[in-house]
């Protein structure tokens, strides 16, 4: 190796070292930016009402663990029930989407049809639709069906493979399966549905996990749908329950004080399951999201 080459390798290693330090500094700084709001949320959940509405202090005077007990003890607020309601909606949506979208995507990938690319392009175009365009007529229709105050309006669509994004995910995944696998299966005498069940489903585990997480957080986040359709208090979902707590001191006026400390405690309760699910499914989730983005 020439001296020049050696010098170059050395300098490049040195550069890499400083690069690594800068990278660490940047990573830590970004982590702080990301984590500070979490700190704020958690610390507020331990404050008193007076502290929560007054000027911000980094630590509460005393850590009020009782806030959490207080949230659970608010009369009429049945946390476990709201959680189960949310989970019920989530499961109904998830099952509907998984079953129909995977079948439909399989059809799109597996069979030849002259206009299938055009059909899929039209399907994809609804990702651009503003949701407001759809809300009002569907609202009317569900009322006429007598589905007000039921969960059906919230999940019925998923049983018709209307979640185009999930459909897209499945299609991307199925496309990567080599056709020879099917030929082999067919020679073994497998039927169409069996091929789907035996070959395709096991392969799409990253999609299953990704959609699980997206739906889990999505159901948590959706206040719009439940606010439109759910009327009875015993059918409320978690996001609505936060609204109930925000209104705890509201005696019917438009101007009222929010008990931020209780809202924070309730929020911490709420996000714990999501974080748990995320940690459990991280590996597959990352794989699934990546596939979706790359092949776009």
């Amino acid at each position, binding site marked *: 190796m020439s001296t020049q080459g050696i010098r170059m390798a050395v300098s490049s290693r040195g550069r890499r070292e400083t690069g690594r330090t800068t990278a660490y500094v940047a990573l830590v700084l970004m982590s702080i930016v990301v984590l500070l709001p979490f700190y704020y949320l958690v610390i507020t959940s331990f404050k008193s*009402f*007076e502290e929560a509405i007054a000027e911000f202090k980094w630590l509460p005077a005393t850590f009020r663990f009782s806030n959490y007990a207080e949230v659970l003890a608010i009369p009429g607020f049945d946390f476990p029930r709201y959680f189960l309601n949310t989970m019920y909606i989530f499961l109904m949506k998830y099952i509907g989407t998984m079953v129909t979208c995977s079948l439909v995507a399989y059809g799109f990938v597996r069979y030849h049809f002259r206009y299938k690319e055009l059909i899929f392009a039209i399907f994809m175009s609804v990702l651009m639709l503003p949701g407001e365009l759809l809300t009002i007529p569907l609202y009317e229709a569900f009322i006429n069906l007598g589905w007000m105050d*039921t969960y059906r309006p919230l999940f019925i669509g998923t049983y018709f493979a209307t979640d185009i994004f999930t459909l897209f995910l499945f299609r991307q995944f199925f496309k990567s399966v080599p056709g020879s696998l099917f030929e082999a299966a067919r020679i073994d005498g497998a039927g169409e549905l069996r091929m789907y069940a035996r070959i395709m489903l096991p392969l799409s585990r990253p999609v299953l996990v990704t959609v699980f997480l997206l739906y889990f957080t999505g159901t948590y986040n959706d206040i719009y749908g439940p606010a439109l359709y759910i009327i009875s208090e015993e059918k409320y979902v978690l996001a609505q329950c936060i609204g*109930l707590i925000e209104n705890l*001191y509201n*005696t019917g006026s438009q*101007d*009222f004080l929010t008990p931020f400390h209780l809202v924070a405690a309730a929020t911490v309760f709420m996000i714990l399951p999501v974080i748990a699910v995320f940690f459990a499914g991280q590996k597959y989730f990352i794989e699934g999201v990546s596939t979706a983005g790359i092949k776009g």
Partner: protein
Amino acid sequence: MTRTIRTYIAVTILAIALVLVGGCTPAATPTAEPTTPAGTTPTQGEVKPSGTVSVCIDIQAKTIFNQFIARFEEKFPDIEINALYGKDQNALIAANQAPDLLKTGDLYVVSQKDLFADLTAYIERDKAAFKPEDFYPNAYNSLNVDGKQLALPSFFNVGLLYYNKTLFDESGIAYPTADWTQEDFISAAQALTKMEGDKVVQWGSSTVLGWWGEWLIHVRQAGGDWMVDGKCALDTPEAIAGLDFFFQRTTKGQYKFAPSPTDDALGGFAGGKTAMEYGGHTGLWVSYNAISGFNWDIAVLPKGLKTNVGAEFAVDAYGMYKESKNPDATWEFLKFWTGTEGAELMSDMGRPAARMSVAETVKAIPMEERANPKSIEALFDAVATGLTLPTDPNFINCTQQVVQPYIDKMLEGKLTAAEAATEATIKANEYLEANK
């Protein structure tokens, strides 16, 4: 293979059918086409109404309301009250499942008038015992649309001067009195504004941001108004003077005793570091009393630039759904709910009842036995200087979307009061014209 496909199609169809059928079974019986509005013709003579009456109630009021229902059902054993706690009345109306008793208010009743039955005949029949003259006249009359009494007042809100007694005591300043002038208010507020270095640690007064709650009072007390003859009139010299005062109170103006939007409001009046709140809301009393050690009271608003008339006066009311299946029973309950007993319940819940006789009961309680506010007399005195809001259906939208942005900019110091008022008036009138 074809068989598999057929099985799949069959399963799919079956699934759809199940979902659809399953969905339809519990469906509500379709609402009948609107018939002649019920409720306008009460049963004459000896009535013994029976049946179910439904009404939406705040979930927070559950405990106290249950006692009230028990009392009512004891008196009327044939009527059953179906209290829909925590349900959204608007959603129920949209779903054709409106409750028999509907909540409304002076601000809403005009745009909701198609929903309500005319109560005039019922009131006429029962007026001897019901005493409609006991309601505050401005509250009662604000619910009369086109000569029809569509709803009855339950409780009211009126603008007051809220003050923190602890902070007044610390500064050795005498509590506000009914004869305060604007100068008294300004000098007290300035004396109560405390600085540490260049940082304000105590405000003389709060600033109500984002809606008309405070600035409209200043405008009206200066002799102006928002709406005159269906048009925006914020560009009159009086109204501009009122808006200007709203600005001059803040740190960007000349008096500097109230926060600008970007200042630290120190948690507002409830934060315990703000001596006074101009206007306020009676709906907040429950929250104030939930704060330990918060020693507050009320006074009638000081005289403004021109007059002491101008506090916002608003009424929460109940009316009867025009397609109620049980109008007679609903009327009995409405009568009880807005009658003396209902009004006393409202009062117990910390809401100012809309009946004048209840004011006497409340005032009869000795000062030391009262919860805050101790000076409850001020509440009833304030009614005389209160003004209702315009009932034009466009008022709320127009104020919030068209006018308020200019007020916001004025508070930021980007527009003078005159500029904000002139531009807001032009835009508001365009809006009112376009949305007629």
